[in-house]
């Protein structure tokens, strides 16, 4: 059974990482006095997303549903989050690599092309959706029914077996 204190701690960590992600997405263009600042911000941002993925998977492994072998059920319930997070990480890394590659010599140069602009829009949109889905999943994983045997789980199990 998930302890309330542990869950609170994990949830705080997740929200901290999400907040950092939102902060970098919002203010990275503003904080580009030197290319190295942006580089550090981007690296930490990508690591934060990676950490969030690890944490959410550890939370999945901790559920009774997962331990009962109903991995499919978990995946079905949270596939949106899993896919979006993976897509967002890929988009973030590619945008960061691209932007840093163009701005490494001179951080105040005009580097925008249509391709970069498109990637930028998609990455930022994915960030919002990732934030929403991730937050929702993290909050929903606090439901005690995920951590104990219940009628709901048995019903779901029967549905999966069919």
């Amino acid at each position, binding site marked *: 059974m*998930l*302890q*309330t204190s542990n*869950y*609170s701690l994990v*949830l705080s960590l997740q*929200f901290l990482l999400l907040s950092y992600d*939102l*902060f970098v*997405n*919002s*203010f990275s*263009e*503003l904080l580009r006095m030197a290319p190295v600042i942006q580089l550090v911000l981007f690296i930490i941002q990508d690591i934060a997303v990676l950490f969030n993925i690890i944490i959410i998977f550890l939370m999945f492994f901790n559920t009774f549903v997962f331990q009962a072998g109903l991995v499919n059920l978990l995946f079905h*319930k949270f596939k*949106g989050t899993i896919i979006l997070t993976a897509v967002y990480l890929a988009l973030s890394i590619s945008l960061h690599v691209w932007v840093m590659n163009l701005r490494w010599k001179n951080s*105040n140069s*005009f580097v*925008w092309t249509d391709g970069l*602009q498109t990637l*930028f*829009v998609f990455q*930022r*949109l994915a*960030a*919002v959706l990732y*934030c*929403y*889905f991730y*937050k*929702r999943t993290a*909050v*929903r*994983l*606090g*439901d*005690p*029914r*995920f*951590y104990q045997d219940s009628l*709901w789980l048995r019903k779901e199990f029967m549905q999966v077996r069919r």
Partner: protein
Amino acid sequence: MRADSGTRLEEGPPRPPRALPPVPSAIQDDVPLSRPKKKKPRTKNTLASASLEGLAQTAVRRPSESSEPPTKELEEHPEAPVQRRQKKMRPPIELETSFTQKKTSGSSLLQDENNIDGEPAEEAVIQKPRRKTKKTQPAELQYANELGVEDEDIITDEQNSPEQQSIFTAPTGVSQPVGKVFVEKSRRFQAADRSELIKTTENIDVSMDMKPSWTTRDVALSVHRAFRMIGLFSHGFLAGCAVWNIVVIYVLAGEELSNFSNLLQQYKTLVYPFQSLLYLLLSLSTISAFDRIDFAKTSIAIRNFLALDPTALASFLYFTALILSLSQQMASDRIHLYTPSSVNGSLWAAGIEEQILQPWIVVNLVVALLVGLSWLFMSYRPGMDLSEGILEKIV
């Protein structure tokens, strides 16, 4: 404690041995023991032999025995004053944990021997008080369980007749629960009422049950509500910011948007801070709006949108505003890097200003309108939150 021993004295007549005060086995009325502690081995022997005599004696002496011993002892033994002092001291001494332990070790030896010899009930019952005190030690740790003794087990027996208790019955050595419970307070065992203690332990249980009521679901719900509050704030703040922004742009651009160079010069320092703030607030507002319509359940969200639910409409408008705002990133960066066309390497060639700024201003205006409209829609049903209902009910 005194009250307890008193009750034992009252119990006396039907069950004589129990009536004896809870003294060390050495101070028995039948056995003349002047120095009980020094001559332990002898004591045992005399006890063993005396116990056999006791078999015969008890049957004869039983009725008067219980009330007599204290006075008898005083008469029989020369060291009576000492014993009296001991007796006076007895209740507190007996309460001493260490003392009790010492004695129990000695008395257990005696008891074992007595059992072998087929000792009468008299001897066994003398041991009883000690056993009781001994029992209170573990009971102190888990007295909650021990307290759950049924009332009928407690000896308040006046009705037990001597006939019922055969003198040949082997001593069982099993202690009976008493009405009092001995609780150790400041290194002394003190008698406390059982029913009162049960009440207090029940209260503790209740308070222990209250604690885990703060479950993970409550944590999740409180976090969700906290975020909804942040979202509510961001809706209004975003609408205000967007309106302020468009007003500033129009003021700087002059009448009929004739003074673009002034706008660029003044606004180039503001463009990125505002763009960043706009993205931050738009993200928060969009997430909050999605939360309210439970966007993850697409079918419900689409149905709500088609039914022209204000919250669903607002979330759609927020998302559109977000896309529009992001699409202006290239233009914003160009404004941020503005240098007059006369400067070498300028991004702003002569005559290009209107071409770039016109759509940029229109998009900003549309964003401001969308955001303002969304705020109105949100405030139409501020309490709506489908996610919370789902969090509370179904997984």
